[in-house]
């Protein structure tokens, strides 16, 4: 009630006692009055200059933000109040704020309002704002199209200029369509200022909407007869764009009616420029309008490309430009550079080309880095056309590798790779290795891969190639791409034995250098692979090169060192573990140490390593007898790499190949060596069956060699082929049965003994184990219908172990089966848990066939496309439980006949041999059968290949021999009715 009354007034000193202070109240009133008057007066917003000062005065980013936010808030409020007097100033401020990186899009509409103003000042700022702030929103563009249309018809040239400039900057396709006719009209304007802008505007319109080119064609005619350089340069730009855009237009310009052909016209302009003497208007450090010259040279290049006549017409002028241009300044070099590019691109005379290459040679020696850069750039573009000319500058180019400038080094490196050939590979590699050692990280990967590729193409001999690979691995360290690792492994594996010994020793030597294990992991990976693979040669083979050999315990100590090192990556440790397992069969004394080391990984924190540890440990225990055959040497891998990239592309192989690789490794992406190997094989052969072949080949389990492998190859086909959901349908499935069975035989895990009671259908079950496993083996993949390769691998592994379980001999295997593959060749297992396996095995025991039927659809639907055309199944013999069936399959070059022999009797047939004969017009090749013993329920498969040299109908005579109870039995039969042709 008494606001100014202080309760304890008596305590206060008189000056603070405001109870009777009228002056105080009067001051309040006066202030209120002033504020009111301020409001009545026109408020003046901060000037742009003052705002910039304020922003610059801000000491911290936060302060600056505060100033900007305050100003933005103010600007927004003026926009809301439709304040048109200060709009221009506010937009200008907003544009400044926009440049500093603050959001300013709320000014878009205000910009449009400004452009609609009658004042030039407003329009200028408005269009500038429109160019800077407008986004691709449709509605705003619609609004501005109207403004532009008005202003394009303005009588002030600068207003028209502004509109054209804005249209050129932000033309959307719709705007371009709407305003193209206006632009075309302005291109014919007598005003040069407008005309040149309209011409460039036309360029942008064509860029956005190429169909609109037609409209502008007539108007381009007069452009080149113009004197004004602004119009000439824009005109040449427009014509260049048109010529690049469509070959029709290019032709149109070349054959322009009458005497105004374009090439002579351009030549005339160019001639005037270089010979016309000094003109102060267009002179840029002594050269007459270099920009126009460059544009014309560029257009000449397009016109003369692959056109002998046009090239002929411009030879002279190019020579003149090349010789008459003053090169002491950058401008002169600009023109020379452009001239050289043109000479290289058109069908120029030989002499002119020599001149051009010489100019480039001069450029390379120029002290100006920019000139050197463009010289390298140009050489890179011309190297494929004229290698020998570029070769002459090789030493200079190699010098550029040492340049401190990254841009120049990069160009020089690319150029060096282009220059490598069989003659200079040794010297070039030496230089590049020096470069690689010192190169930045970003270069190392690219450079090492490039060197490997070059070495692959041009290496003079294996020893040199191996040494180079090793040097690259050492020089590039951890930056090496995976493809280098895999290609090195391939190379080593396909080298002759002495070279393998040699390089393994070299690897071992390089591992001795301190830090190599940690800093050069790709080297480590390759080295341990080689030591594991060729451990016997390395330790006990012929030592021609007098290498110092470590003792076995030294070797194990080194393995121990990096297997326990924290700096070594998981991938490298994976390599090392496999290598160690392999060494256990190569070394003579230290097997216990190896076992101890491997066993210690059984409790490793990394799942993959742990799995390997556990699985390999099994090979020291219950499956001791399997260890030597499982860990046999891998066969030589083929080298014919299509792609240097990590496993992309590659024949008919589908996109799933990376999945196969990545599935097993933790932290997919750094695919390990084994993966890369298989991967590259995929690339090489382009045929998925071959991977299987390799896989099996690497196990070396196949007693029979080639024949078995082929049968195994067929597995993939048969798996693919299994479309029938009903496994018990003997007719549909008996062939795959046999092949799968075959595979099991191949893996030396005989499952026929348990399945014989059920006869052929159960055989399917056994095979079904495989397919079933492939449904389970990689849980992640089953949904992908085309994941067939993956599946087959998984299926293969599981069927092996699954059948082991069926045998009852290994029911306690504490791991999932699908890592057989990882033991075999370093192919990391598809990580699935053991639970599905258990169910798979159980399924196998109970009713493999049905399970197959239930679980198969994924596999069955997988790959209908890959199924080769097959003829009907022919029964050759069905006697006393012995059933021989022939199934012809048309291959690309021959007919394959798969012979399946099943024994449904209670007797065991021994020494089973099948012989076949055909007419003389056919060639027959018999592949080794899958076995010669037919237990009850057993299956033997065999493949025949028949090549026809005439159109005769194939008939075949079969002779089957076997021992029954020690007595020789012979059956003869004749088969006909083979399909004649490939059913299309």
């Amino acid at each position: 009630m008494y606001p100014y009354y202080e309760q304890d007034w008596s305590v206060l000193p008189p000056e603070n006692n405001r109870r009777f202070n009228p002056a105080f109240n009067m001051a309040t009133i006066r202030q209120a009055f002033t504020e009111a008057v301020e409001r009545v007066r026109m408020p003046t917003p901060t000037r742009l200059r003052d705002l910039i000062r304020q922003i610059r005065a801000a000491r911290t980013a936060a302060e600056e933000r505060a100033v900007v936010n305050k100003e933005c808030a103010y600007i927004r409020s003026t926009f809301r109040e439709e304040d048109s007097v200060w709009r221009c100033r506010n937009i200008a401020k907003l544009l400044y704020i926009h440049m500093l990186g603050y959001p300013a899009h709320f000014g878009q509409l205000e910009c449009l309002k400004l452009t609609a103003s009658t004042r030039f000042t407003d329009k200028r700022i408005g269009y500038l704002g429109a160019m800077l702030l407008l986004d691709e929103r449709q509605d705003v563009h619609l609004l501005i199209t109207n403004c532009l249309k008005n202003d394009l018809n303005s009588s002030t040239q600068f207003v028209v200029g502004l509109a054209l400039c804005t249209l050129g900057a932000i033309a959307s396709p719709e705007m371009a369509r709407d305003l193209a006719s206006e632009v075309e009209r302005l291109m014919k304007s007598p005003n040069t200022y407008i005309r040149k802008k309209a011409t460039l505007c036309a360029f942008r319109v064509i860029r956005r909407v190429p169909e609109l080119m037609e409209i502008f064609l007539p108007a381009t005619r007069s452009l080149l007869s113009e004197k004004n350089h602004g119009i000439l340069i824009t005109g040449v730009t427009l014509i260049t764009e048109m010529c690049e855009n469509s070959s029709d237009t290019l032709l149109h310009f070349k054959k322009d009616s009458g005497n105004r052909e374009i090439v002579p016209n351009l030549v005339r302009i160019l001639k005037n420029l270089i010979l016309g003497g000094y003109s102060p208007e267009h002179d840029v450090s002594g050269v007459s309008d270099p920009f126009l010259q460059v544009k014309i040279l560029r257009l000449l290049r397009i016109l003369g490309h692959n056109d002998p006549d046009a090239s002929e017409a411009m030879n002279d002028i190019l020579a003149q430009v090349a010789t008459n241009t003053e090169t002491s300044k950058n401008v002169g070099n600009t023109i020379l550079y452009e001239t050289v590019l043109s000479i290289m691109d058109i069908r120029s005379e030989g002499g002119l080309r020599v001149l051009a290459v010489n100019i480039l040679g001069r450029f390379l020696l120029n002290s100006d880095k920019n000139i050197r850069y463009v010289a390298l750039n140009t050489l890179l573009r011309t190297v494929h056309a004229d290698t020998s000319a570029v070769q002459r500058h090789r030493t200079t180019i190699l010098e550029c590798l040492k340049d401190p400038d990254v841009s120049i080094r990069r160009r020089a490196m690319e150029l060096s790779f282009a220059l490598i050939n069989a003659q200079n590979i040794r010297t070039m590699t030496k230089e590049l290795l020096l470069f690689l050692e010192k190169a930045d990280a970003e270069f190392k990967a690219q450079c090492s891969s490039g060197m490997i590729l070059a070495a692959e193409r041009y290496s003079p001999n294996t020893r040199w190639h191996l040494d180079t690979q090793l040097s690259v691995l050492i020089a590039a360290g951890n930056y090496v791409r995976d493809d280098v690792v895999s290609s090195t492994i391939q190379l080593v594996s396909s080298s002759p034995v002495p070279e393998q010994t040699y390089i393994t020793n070299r690897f071992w030597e390089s591992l001795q250098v301190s830090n190599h294990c940690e800093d050069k992991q790709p080297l480590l990976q390759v080295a341990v692979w080689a030591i594991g693979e060729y451990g016997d040669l390395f330790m006990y083979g012929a030592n021609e090169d007098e290498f110092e050999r470590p003792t076995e315990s030294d070797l194990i100590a080194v393995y121990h060192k990096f297997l326990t090192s924290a700096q070594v990556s998981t991938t490298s440790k994976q390599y090392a573990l496999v290598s160690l397992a392999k060494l256990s069969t190569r070394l003579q004394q230290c097997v216990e140490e190896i076992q101890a080391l491997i066993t210690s990984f059984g409790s490793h924190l990394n799942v993959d390593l742990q799995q390997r540890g556990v699985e390999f440990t099994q090979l020291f225990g219950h499956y001791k007898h399997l260890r030597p055959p499982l860990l046999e040497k891998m066969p030589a891998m083929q080298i014919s790499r299509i792609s240097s990239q990590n496993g992309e592309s590659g024949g008919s192989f589908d996109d799933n190949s990376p999945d196969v690789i990545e599935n097993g490794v933790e932290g997919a992406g750094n695919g390990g060596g084994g993966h890369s190997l298989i991967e590259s094989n995929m690339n090489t052969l382009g045929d998925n069956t071959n991977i299987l072949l390799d896989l099996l080949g690497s196990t070396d389990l196949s007693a029979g060699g080639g024949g078995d492998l082929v049968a195994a190859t067929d597995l993939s086909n048969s798996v693919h082929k299994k479309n029938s959901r009903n496994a018990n349908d003997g007719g549909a499935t008996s062939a795959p049965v046999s092949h799968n069975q075959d595979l099991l035989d191949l893996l030396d895990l005989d499952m026929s003994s348990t399945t014989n009671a059920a006869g052929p259908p159960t055989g399917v079950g056994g095979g079904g184990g495989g397919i079933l496993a492939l449904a389970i083996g990689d849980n992640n993949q089953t949904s992908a219908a085309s994941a067939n390769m993956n599946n087959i691998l998984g299926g293969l592994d599981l069927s092996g172990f699954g059948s082991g379980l069926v045998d009852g001999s290994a029911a306690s295997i504490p791991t999932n089966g699908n890592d057989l593959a990882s033991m075999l060749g370093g192919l990391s297992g598809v990580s699935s848990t053991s639970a599905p396996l258990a169910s798979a095995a159980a399924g196998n025991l109970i009713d493999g066939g049905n399970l197959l039927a239930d679980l198969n659809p994924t596999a069955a639907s997988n790959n209908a496309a890959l199924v080769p055309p097959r003829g009907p199944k022919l029964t050759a013999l069905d006697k006393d439980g012995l059933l021989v069936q022939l199934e012809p399959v048309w291959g690309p070059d021959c007919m394959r006949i798969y012979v399946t022999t099943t024994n449904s009797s209670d007797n065991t047939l021994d020494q089973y041999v099948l012989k076949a004969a055909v007419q003389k017009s056919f060639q027959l090749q018999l592949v080794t059968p899958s076995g010669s013993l037919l237990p009850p329920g057993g299956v033997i498969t065999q493949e025949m290949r028949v090549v026809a040299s005439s159109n005769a109908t194939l008939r075949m005579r079969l002779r089957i021999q076997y021992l029954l109870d020690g007595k020789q039995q012979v059956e003869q039969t004749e088969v006909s009715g083979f399909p004649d042709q490939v059913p299309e």
Partner: protein
Amino acid sequence: MIKAILVFNNHGKPRLSKFYQYFDESLQQQIIKETFQLVSKRDDNVCNFLEGGSLIGGSDYKLIYRHYATLYFVFCVDSSESELGILDLIQVFVETLDKCFENVCELDLIFHADAVHHILSELVMGGMVLQTNMNDIMARIEEQNKIVKQEAGISAAPARAVSAVKSMNIPQQIKDIKLPDLPQAIKDFKF
């Protein structure tokens, strides 16, 4: 074609940014930042070309720049432009600025950012060279500035006054006047 023209100082503060291809606001700022990082770490004695800006264009694009005292002038161009030619163009641009501002320095660019844009738009339009004759550019700029001055000078004063009065909306503003509640204040006087 020129995709963008960027000018920033030695600390990466943008002084001019002009994009001839649409990028949204935040991407524009990222491009400026990235370009600054790429360009600023290069010595003065290396070449003026740089590849590897990831945001704008990719492999077909080059950054071509010149470093003047406190400012970097960076042109981002595609492969259809001559590298050396663009260097010359930067030179022409800077010389034109120098003529317009008489000994141009960073402060001129800061306080006349709009004027720099106007000059640039006479030199390059829609990402293509429009006019390289400095005298011509100067003449056009001066003519335009004259128009602006005319509009701002005496001749434009009446129009401005009219529009100011029009937008005053006096009744509303009088209504808005807030005077302190005098009777209440008087009542509060206690003698």
